[in-house]
């Protein structure tokens, strides 16, 4: 069959998928739109056991209220319950969402944001349609169309979001300057051992757990994913923790390293946008 027949099939299938997705969103029927969002409160935090698995997150007891019925629920974070809870203190507010009428199928989120319109899959299907068109254009008319087709929209999107990204990184750098230093301690090191199915090698992932008390008396337990040089021997280690006073979930061990990291991130962001834009320009010139 001619490749254009495949293109028509490709565009037809994914175009229909996108249309169904947009239709469902307009009718308010997507999963995100039918999801109930509540604010949960951590009632109890259990100290992690040294050597246990970090995969389920810090063991907490959370209570939340169903907005429609007003019924109270008390739950724990066992198994596949959405985002892993890696920073916890009694009284912390945490996002809980579940399909309408099924509060037992709850999931946690670390952010209390709204859910959006559920257009992720529809947009992805539309992207596949576009990618198919660009691929066939590049085969038929030459490689510059591939550069222009993929680089152009990506560069425009990058340029559109660049000011916001720079503002966000500046805000985070300012946040680092306002952090408060307290003493903390590594209370446990969690361990996860997996075996690579390809070569049989054993991979060990270590996760130190730190606790610290904020100036206003909140006792925070948190996974410390970076910043401790020798995690295996870190149990009992005393540390200085820098945390954001308005949200102790934002904490670092080395403020200067974090500041350098955010500045580097900003440079990478700008260079990335420039590279993609240059690719698009090369495509236009080579047409």
């Amino acid at each position, binding site marked *: 069959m001619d490749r254009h027949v495949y293109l028509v099939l490709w565009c037809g299938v994914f175009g229909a998928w996108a249309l169904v997705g947009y239709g469902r969103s307009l009718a308010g029927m997507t999963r995100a739109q039918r999801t109930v969002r509540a604010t949960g409160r951590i009632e109890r935090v259990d100290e992690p056991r040294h050597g246990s698995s970090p995969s389920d997150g810090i063991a907490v007891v959370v209570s939340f209220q169903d907005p429609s019925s007003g019924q109270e629920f008390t739950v724990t974070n066992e198994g596949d319950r959405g985002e892993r809870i890696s920073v916890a203190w009694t009284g912390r507010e945490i996002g809980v969402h579940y399909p309408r009428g099924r509060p037992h199928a709850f999931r946690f989120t670390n952010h209390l944001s709204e859910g959006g319109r559920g257009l992720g899959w529809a947009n992805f299907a539309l992207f596949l349609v576009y990618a198919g068109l660009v691929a066939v254009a590049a085969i038929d008319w030459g490689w510059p169309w591939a550069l222009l087709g993929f680089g152009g929209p990506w560069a425009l999107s990058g340029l559109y979001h660049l000011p916001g990204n720079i503002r966000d990184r500046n805000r985070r750098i300012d946040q680092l300057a306002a952090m408060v230093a307290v003493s903390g301690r590594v209370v446990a090191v969690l361990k996860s051992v*997996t075996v690579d199915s390809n070569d049989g090698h*054993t991979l060990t992932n270590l996760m130190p757990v730190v606790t610290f008390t904020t100036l206003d008396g909140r006792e925070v337990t948190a996974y410390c994913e970076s910043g401790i040089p020798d995690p295996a021997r870190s149990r009992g280690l005393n540390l200085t923790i820098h945390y954001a006073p308005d949200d102790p979930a934002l904490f670092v061990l080395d403020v200067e390293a974090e500041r350098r990291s955010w500045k580097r991130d900003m440079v990478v962001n700008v260079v990335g946008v420039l590279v993609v834009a240059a690719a698009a320009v090369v495509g236009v010139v080579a047409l």
Partner: protein
Amino acid sequence: MTITTSAAPPPTHNRPVALARGFLTGGVTGASLAAVVVGIVTENEPLIVGGACLLAVYVLIRHLAGLPRRAREAAVPPHLALAMIESLEAVGGETSDIPVKFDLTVAPDDAPAYRVEFTQDINLADLPDYRPRGILVVQYPPDRPLKVRIVKRPTPDWEERAASARLDSAPGPARASDPWEGCGATLVGFLGLLLGAALVVLLFRANLFDQDDSDTARPSVSSSSTSSSSTTTVSSASGTVALGPGQSFLDEGRLGRSVAALATGVDKQRALTVVVQERLLTVVFAPTGTQAASRLDLDSLPYDRVPALVKEATTTLGVGSPRTWQLTADRLTGAVALRISVTGSEGTAYLEADGQGKVVRRVPAGG
């Protein structure tokens, strides 16, 4: 708190239907994969697309058919119950979460207690928490009480109940959790996979074997033609004509006709060398676009004289039987030259002729 227990067989789900579904899934998967492979081998694009689409449509149908059941199951919260460990056994594993085989007495609040056996991954650090006679909290779907999972982080009220409860063992033996989702279903699925693949291969066996035959017979040249009497093969660099048994290029007019047939559609002034043996003719061409001074014009060679020259070389130069001969025509020395070499029991003799077929030199055998 003591809960009185008694044994009762809990309901199970429909095994024959599960097996049939496994067989169908295996069959469709096997047929789809075989269709894609056969399609690639036989270069049958509709078969490749059809195989891929069959699998996609089957997955879609299974997904849609399962929607009501999944929605029904998801709408009902799992049942929670207390359970007592009768026995447990770690069954291997090199990771930090190791599979442990549990034998439990499950004591639902509103139903008789029962024994169940299942395997669940437990972290090594948490393993000391699980001891025989220990009380746990378990959960299961309301309609599938054998599908038991241990709740590792129960809520505070269930934690309290478990801490204060005492349970009696239910009589055994323990029922396995989902036995048909194990070995039997795998075997039936594999059988379906093999049958599905075999069906597709059988349906397209004619195309497959034809393809194999033609592949082995196809030479790697630009064109080839075969008749009952000879095989002609032409590429940009050379052309050959091989005669069938009982024929010879010394037959009247055959050499001229063979060269003409071989040179059809080729620049006849591009030849470098013509080599003729009893049943094999080879013409070597100069590369396209080059201007070699030693080119031959194929039309100018004295083909009619060749049988007489070969006869003269084989009969007058003292070469005994059995004899083989070879004629080479080229312009390496400037003028067209035909060299006939004859090899026999007494050695090799040579005869040279000019572009008109007139003999210019004779070298007898041993001379």
